């Protein structure tokens, strides 16, 4: 077995309180000594309520947030020890998809410019044919290249965001609530697209979501967060069949089912 694509060991993040009120000088411990790993080709689901620290943890995985303590290794490399060039390589390897594509795509750039910039940032050039092929591989046709974000639907935009993440052939995609802003009928399209990428291209996923039902279907393993800690982790079927921790149980019980009451 090769080493995990992502390995976080005893990672903590303390945010300093801006004004010094309330929580005082100690600040706020958003992530508290978390260890987790994502195997190659695996989809790990990270669930928890708002404020549980799941987004902070996800952002530490690709260096967007610097941990207060602990180590983060992607592809075996400690990202705290990376040079600027090394960090740049890391960001080729670890891509990110955010919740709201309208907010994560530059409104003043066409889809073509958005995608071209990814290549340019890494010193690569690309052809129209390559960009068109990239877009087509996730859904929207080449005619989307000339469009601005406001000229596309939410689902098509999220596909553009996925294309941007795929541009440099990453090994790991961190998806932070990638479908929460989408309509129900479109959400399933995007989830299936991500599942295809995992199956066909062997891309690993760290999928952050508050929606247990989504995670249950689309993750191999699940980690449940509460107040900055991982309180339960295991294969998704098992976790949802017999949740052990009270927090997981509360989440499972509170999730409303599209089912008739028995």
């Amino acid at each position, binding site marked *: 077995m090769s080493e995990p694509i992502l390995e976080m060991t005893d990672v903590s993040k303390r945010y300093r309180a801006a004004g010094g009120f309330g929580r005082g000088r100690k600040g706020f411990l958003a992530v508290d000594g978390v260890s987790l790993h994502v195997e190659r080709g695996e989809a790990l689901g990270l669930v928890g309520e*708002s404020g549980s620290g799941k987004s902070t943890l996800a952002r530490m995985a690709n260096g967007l947030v610097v941990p207060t303590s602990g180590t983060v290794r992607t592809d075996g490399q400690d990202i705290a020890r990376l040079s600027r060039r090394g960090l740049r390589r890391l960001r080729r390897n670890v891509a990110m998809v955010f919740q709201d594509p309208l907010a994560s795509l530059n409104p003043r750039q066409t889809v073509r410019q958005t995608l071209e910039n990814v290549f340019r940032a890494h010193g690569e050039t690309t052809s129209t044919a390559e960009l068109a092929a990239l877009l087509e591989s996730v859904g929207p046709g080449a005619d989307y290249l000339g469009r601005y974000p406001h000229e596309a639907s939410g689902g098509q935009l999220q596909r553009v965001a996925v294309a941007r993440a795929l541009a440099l052939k990453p090994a790991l995609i961190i998806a932070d609530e990638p479908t929460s802003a989408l309509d129900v009928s479109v959400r399933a399209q995007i*989830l299936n697209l991500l599942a295809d990428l995992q199956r066909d291209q062997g891309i690993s996923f760290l999928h952050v979501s508050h929606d*247990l*039902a989504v995670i249950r279907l689309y993750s191999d393993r699940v980690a449940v967060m509460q107040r900055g800690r991982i309180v339960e982790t295991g294969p998704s079927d098992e976790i949802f069949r017999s949740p052990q921790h009270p927090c997981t149980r509360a989440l499972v019980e509170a999730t409303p089912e599209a089912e008739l009451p028995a």
Partner: protein
Amino acid sequence: MPDPVLQVEDLCVSFTSGGVTADVVRDLSVSLDGGRTLAVVGESGSGKTITGRAIMRLLPRGASARGRIVVAGREMLSADERELRRARGSDVAMVFQDSMSALSPYLDIGAHIAQAVRLHDPSVTRRAARARAVEMLDRVGIPEPADAVRRFPHEFSGGMRQRAVIAMALVNRPALLIADEPTTALDVTVQAQILALLRELQQEYGMAMLLISHDFGVVGSAADDVLVLYAGRQAEYGSLRDIFDQPAHPYTAGLRAATPRLDARLDTGGERTRLRAIPGAPTSLRDAGPGCAFAPRCGLADQVGERCVVEAPLPTVRPTSEGGGLHLAACHLDRLPALKEVAR
């Protein structure tokens, strides 16, 4: 049998901008009795929020409504401002998704509720209105209500704020509550509490509830009847059981199949299942042609042929389960083929 609390007949809502008028809701008819919950389900552009606002006569500038809306015996579309002021709050009240924007950051929670009381009955003293606010906060489950009335919206958590908004909406005992995605912004555990609270208050007050939602999970745990809207038109209407057990519109069936479930019965022994997605994106009435607005995304349109493209289907009566009540669907197909719940 008493008159329904809400009656909507042939409601059309249109927007005018730049001299062009376009319908966003067309030919909507529905009625709702006291003590019952009707869920209005739809996606972007379906007209679900606009319908709720039309009932309150809170349409944005440039929008106008035709047809007939009767709430607790009052004609809403022909009512003047004075009548509307009386109707809002005591006949019909509304709870929105974002509780922060429903509350003024400059007023304490008590002032919001007291204001609602005194607007409807100016003879109530300030002190008495304030006392009503404390009572109401207690009723919606806010701890230490005498203390909580003096707090400001930003001091409350999202769930507590939504409770305060519910207290404000219900303080005058409206006959109809319109709840527009009331739990969408909340965590699941808080969502379950708020839905339980709404159910409880509804039974206590015997009020009718129009629950606007995009989430079949929420609908399944709260609704008696369901209205499914697509592109501003009624796609299907029926009891929760009929909508879930024997949907007659391909869109309803498709939405269900696209909704992930936590249900342990879906356990596959480690093998991953996939949701069945509906291709394409939701449209609005503005972009729809003369035919069925769902036809371009419908996997069954081929079975019917050209009719789906040229003729918009009207709601027709469908079979119901035992004691199911009215079941309507607007589809040219008489019967849906059996659909597998989860496609591989």
